[in-house]
């Protein structure tokens, strides 16, 4: 449909979007950057810091963009990243 959308959806408050909490185990990371490459929402990027293994671990750019698809956990060879739902939010 070609109409331009000019009003916010009336039910936007009813949809509870997931709120993710991303946990990075920075020192486990070996810097393969799979999580950065494959994140569909581009939530992660390479950081400046150097970890115990001497590589740049990822850092979180915008946690609110995360949809909790969990693909980063799936592809991480070193079990260095996982995502959980934020506690104390929503609830219904």
């Amino acid at each position, binding site marked *: *449909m*070609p*109409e*331009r*959308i*000019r*009003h*916010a*959806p*009336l*039910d*936007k408050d*009813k*949809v509870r*979007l*997931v709120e993710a909490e991303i946990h990075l185990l920075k020192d486990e990371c070996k810097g393969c950057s799979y999580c950065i490459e*494959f*994140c*569909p*929402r581009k939530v992660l990027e390479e950081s400046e810091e150097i970890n115990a293994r001497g590589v740049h671990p990822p850092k979180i750019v915008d946690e609110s963009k995360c*949809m*909790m*698809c969990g*693909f980063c956990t799936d592809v991480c060879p070193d079990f260095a990243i996982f995502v959980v739902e934020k506690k104390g939010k929503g609830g219904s």
Partner: protein
Amino acid sequence: MTEDKESQSKEDDIRIGVYVCHCGLNIAGSVDCAEVAKFAGTLPHVVLAQDNRYTCSDQGQAGIKNDIKEHRLNRVVVASCSPRLHEPTFRKACEEAGLNKYLFEMANIREHCSWVHLYDKEAGTEKAKDLVRMAAAKAALLEPAVEVEVPIIRKALVIGGGVAGIQAALDLADTGYRVFLVEKEPSIGGMMARIDKTFPTMDCSICILAPKMSDAGHHPNVELLTNSEVSEVKGYIGNFRVKVLKKPRYVLKDCSACGECVKVCPVVAPNEFDVGLAIRHAIYTPFAQAVPSTYVIDMNLCLNKDGVIVCDKCIKACERQAVKFEMKPEVAELEVGTIIVATGADVFDPSGLPHYGYGKYPNVITSLEFERLINAGGPSGGHLLRPSDKQIPKRVGFVQCVGSRSDKSGRLYCSNVCCMNTIKDSLLIKEHWPDTEIYVFYVDIRAYGKGFEDLYNRARKAGVVFVRGLPAQIVEDRKTHNVWLIGENTLQKEVYRINVDMAVLSIGLEARKDSEVIQRLLTLSRDQDGFFLEAHPKLRPVDAATGGVFFAGCAESPKDIKDSVTQASAAAARAGILMAKGKVTVEAITPITFAEKCTACGLCVKVCPYNAIILNKDLKRVEIVEAACGGCGTCAAECNFGALTQNHFTDAQITAQIDAVTEHDADRKIVAFCCNWCSYAGADFAGVSRMQYPPNVRIIRTMCSGRVAPKFVERAFARGAGAVLVTGCHLGDCHYINANYQTQKRVERLWKKMEQGGLNKERLQLLWASAAEGERFASKIREMKPMVESVKPEEIGKAKKFFEKALGGS
């Protein structure tokens, strides 16, 4: 009135009858028809010339038939209206009298003469004489021709799955033809599916549409192609080869529409079907009654858009395992005999009108958003909520003609549906919440249809206040988000300032923004408002000028549901007529080759838009594939050796017309070449609209501007013509795919030649004008008049010599 020169023309075989029509006073009002007939009698080969009131009437036709037998006429010329209107009528009459229909010729002295020179009878009569002279000159050289019959594929394509497309598809399918219904969106239903109630009966829109949608979805003769777009159309009437791009749904037909996938999909976006007033997920169905009911994944939104399945929530949720991310776009190749264009219309976007504050103030909404809000299946469950605080408004104002009948919005036409839609909407509010105060601000209320006036009266009785005069401005109260409508009540001549909780802009309809795509694929024309142009506004209202193509619904002009359905059934009937016959004759306007002159240079092969010419190198000649030929004549214009010409538009015939124009006073005349589909129709349109322009132009009709060979232009100048005007369809709009690009090349070459020869190249003009651009044609002639008058005799003489030499040399 009758003048017979029986004795005089015994020596030659050609016997022309000329009939000059008065058309009541349409022609006779500004042309002395008796004098034109008398003049026609003096022309070579003319054995009979008469004038009569209505040549197209039964008596008029009977007269022609009788004369063909009695006076042994073997050519007939009728000087009356445009051949685009009545050529088929007279051709049929000739055929019935045993005369080959290609021995008939028309002089257009109405659209191209009397109607555009209403106040100059003398000049009009002179021009009419010239036009008859040209027609008679061509007639003398006409040859009988036999038309090739081609079979019609008994399948139809319907483009657009709104109510018009659905109706047309069902009618054709019920008749027994196979129908392909192509819809761009994931579901059929179109605009009608989004509307709450219909006027004037207040039926629930989706309740009456859904059964039809379902019928179309299940009909054994209908193949639905949703989420699909037509990407290529080749061929011609009866034999179209169409490519349809089927975009993947990523959900298989096994989907039971249970909706479990939606619950787990993490991504959301505004639902376009609800004009963004409700949320949908990346996997969704646009609305509950969608046909097909199969869900669809919006790949721009889905997390898997890069081709890696990172999120498999919907796959896991689907019991039937219907989600399939591996689906790829497919191209369906269809062969159909007829095409119905039912692509619908867009709605006007009022954000371009800042004084109404749409997009800025939350409580200013469009009538389409209103439809979704009042709809029980819509985002608010049928509770009319205003966007700012989700409260039911107690005072509502409707503003009419937003994007219609206005210079400001650039839409000068009436959108046909908004008045009644507003009246219906106001009654809907009154039905649910009788205490709501409703104001309708209007210019005129157009309640023209069956039952419309009744509904209007009901609204007034229900207490809806109608105020004549649109608001000049809408201003928001920042605290309450109510809006003030300020304007002049033109009935009471006083300024009003009315505060409402919500204002509804009654937006008009406009042509689809992507109409151009379909226009090019099917070589259609559009009117000045952007809607598709019908072959004749009164007598062929659903036919396109392109054979085998028909219109239904808002694609042709804004109309309500009833009119769309009526037109859809009409289009289906028209398409059905063709398919029932099973065969169609193709006009005998294909090229003729003279093998002995052909050098096998291959130039014609290159310019043919249809690849209908094959170069036979062994035999050193070209061969024409007649069934593939579109009949533009571009090949004939390209041939330098006279080895090709076009049936019914031969070099000799066109040259005879040029010579007839330039027989006397050539230096004051413009020789114009017009293509049948755009510029000739545009000149007709100028006539129908009575646009006045100088009478010094003489139009020669070709099928395409691509037929205009440089030697025709050279001939006109060599004969001392004041100016030459070559006209055609706009580049890209050519009825023959791209033949008019050849026209452009040739004219540019001629300009260069004229410059090199030291001639004033302004005397050769090129104009692109569509069938709807009568004014463009008329103003070109007006613009050229002073130029033609200022051309000095020496210049004429110089050009004469220059081009005589050029023609002699080739």
